[in-house]
């Protein structure tokens, strides 16, 4: 969209590049076996996190699931605390008790990610209702994968959000797979997830999740409408995860999907697409990109160093925090 200003486009680009570089660094370091928890990388899906969260203020809430690194970072979550969490350190965002599937940074409105598919969807709705009850104007974004749409709680939550016209934007990242199971064995052919959301009376859209500008523009409108009292909105972004479901490797050779399919999606890399365009338009120059890369490189190295140097929680921590005081 040519009307979009250059600074914003650069922000979107930088946001995606940052997540990519961080995730790739995690993948490399994972082989050291010092991060002793499962990791669900979002490489290939960065445009959704960045395009959506660019429209949120710290007062807006976000919740997510197992693949939450991008959402957390795009919402402004603290990187050193995230890295330390993966290393199981006491300086981690959950003091090491959560691991990569339980990111949290309440100071920026990231209310939490949990490891059960679909579970934070109703919580997002509840956080939205609490805001309405208190007369606070805010939007809540609930991120989940397309497999969550197969859970009962998804339907229950959408029904209630629609019933009460709550300010929630449901963001479904459809990357075609639930672990190794393709969409075709999970949802009827010819039916899309937006049909499900529409069935609950919620205005729903589908869009290219690898086009950050499209993600940004669409979610900008939906977030504004939801926040302004227009009721919930649903959006399905079509995208693709590049690496294995859980872990650092590529796994196109094991047989549940094809190298050809992967290459087709890789050719639609959200970062390269914007980069090509911004270079062409002169919004971005190769030295800009170099500078951005080294900035993020430094940031992630510092975060990793912080994580590695941090202490593990003391064993006495085991029984702490079971209950709130």
């Amino acid at each position, binding site marked *: 969209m040519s009307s979009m200003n250059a600074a914003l486009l650069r922000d979107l680009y930088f946001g995606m590049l940052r997540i990519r570089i961080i995730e790739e660094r995690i993948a490399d370091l994972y082989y050291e076996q010092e991060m002793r928890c499962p990791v669900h990388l979002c490489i290939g899906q960065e445009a959704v996190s960045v395009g959506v969260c660019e429209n949120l203020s710290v007062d807006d809430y976000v919740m997510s699931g197992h693949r939450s690194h991008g959402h957390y970072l795009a919402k402004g979550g603290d990187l050193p605390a995230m890295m330390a969490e993966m290393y199981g350190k006491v300086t981690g965002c*959950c003091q090491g008790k959560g691991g990569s599937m339980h990111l949290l940074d309440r100071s920026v409105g990231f209310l*939490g990610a949990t490891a059960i598919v679909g579970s934070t969807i109703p919580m997002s709705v509840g956080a939205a209702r609490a805001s309405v009850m208190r007369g606070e104007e805010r939007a809540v974004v609930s991120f989940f994968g397309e497999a969550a749409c197969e859970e009962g*709680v998804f339907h229950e939550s959408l029904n*209630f959000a629609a019933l009460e016209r709550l300010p929630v934007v449901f963001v479904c990242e459809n990357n075609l797979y639930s672990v190794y199971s393709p969409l075709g064995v999970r949802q009827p052919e010819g039916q899309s997830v937006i049909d499900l959301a529409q069935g609950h009376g919620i205005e729903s859209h589908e869009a290219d999740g690898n086009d950050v500008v499209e993600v940004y523009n669409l979610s900008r409108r939906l977030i504004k409408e939801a926040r302004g009292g227009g009721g919930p909105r649903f959006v399905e972004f079509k995208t693709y995860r590049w690496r294995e479901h859980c872990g650092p490797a590529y796994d196109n050779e094991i047989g549940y999907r094809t190298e050809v399919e992967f290459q087709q999606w890789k050719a639609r890399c959200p970062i390269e697409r914007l980069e090509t365009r911004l270079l062409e338009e002169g919004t971005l120059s190769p030295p800009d990109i170099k500078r951005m890369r080294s900035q993020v490189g430094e940031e992630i190295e510092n975060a990793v160093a912080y994580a590695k140097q941090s202490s593990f929680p003391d064993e006495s921590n085991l029984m702490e925090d079971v209950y709130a005081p």
Partner: protein
Amino acid sequence: MPDREITFAQAVREATDLCMAEDPTVYLMGLGVPDPKGVFGTTVGLQEKYGPDRVFDVPTSENAMTGVAVGSALVGMRPILVHQRLDFALLSMEQIVNQAANWHYMFGGRGGNLPLVIRLVVGRGWGQGPQHSQSLQAWFAHVPGLKVVMPTVPYDAKGLLIASIQDNNPVIFIEHRWLHNVKGHVPEGVYSVPLGAARVVREGSDVTIASSSYMTLEALQAAEVMSEDGIEAEVLDIRTLRPLDQEAILDSVGKTGRLIVADTGWKSFGIGAEVVAFTAERAFAKLKHPPHRIGLPDCPSPSTPAIANRFYPRAAEIASAGRAMFGLSPTGIVEEPSVPEDIPDPSFAGPF
């Protein structure tokens, strides 16, 4: 009015009312909450008083509505969620166990407090049958991160509910249907009964009966029967299953040397199993006789009174267990019940 008597159900309603008046973040939801029956009278009139934003009916979506409660609690509300039967809340075990119970711990104490009360109703009789009466308190009590409360008398129902609402953790508050109509002394105004403290409801020196909820009433009756033969039972109302007041139970067993545990749930893997186990671990030498558990036999809950009466233990079974510890023969029926055994008292009329 120092001797004001109200029912358990009225006590629950009053506790809710007082907390809602005092704290605008407290809200109440559940299927049937504002309906004419008001969840056995426990929520009657509250919507009129506090409005539909704070007191409301919900879709029949137990799991999501629990998640809604959790999400609102995370951002500062204090929800009370009511289910007319515990059985219905089983659809929300995901939110309760995976999410609510773990929340504070799994986020290293930084995930925010989760003040949430889930009221569940258990019961027996009147053909409630396999899916409308199950006493699954042990499921909840098994899970660290939850608190589980199971009051007997109206005084405790009010005080413990207020404490539960004021607590910063998820609390499972279990009400026995046969207690709702029972009257007792309840002071007006706000007071709380601390979670995690058992209470001696009858003193005795010969055998400890640790019981919870409705079984405490049966235990008291059993104690009277045993007393006729000179056996003085100490009846301890457990009140809170988690945290469990081990010290109070051990103190009593230290005195009596004998232990009976009477619970409304299944005997196997149940509350009695837990109480007997820690007593054996911590005070084995004090025991003069093997402990005894009173609970449900290992079959689902049948509907017809013809066999349900054999399913649910009553005072006679408790008294017989106590008598056996002293080499006495089992007692017959404690007292020929003046009402059919599938209702607690003649005022109790179906449908339930």
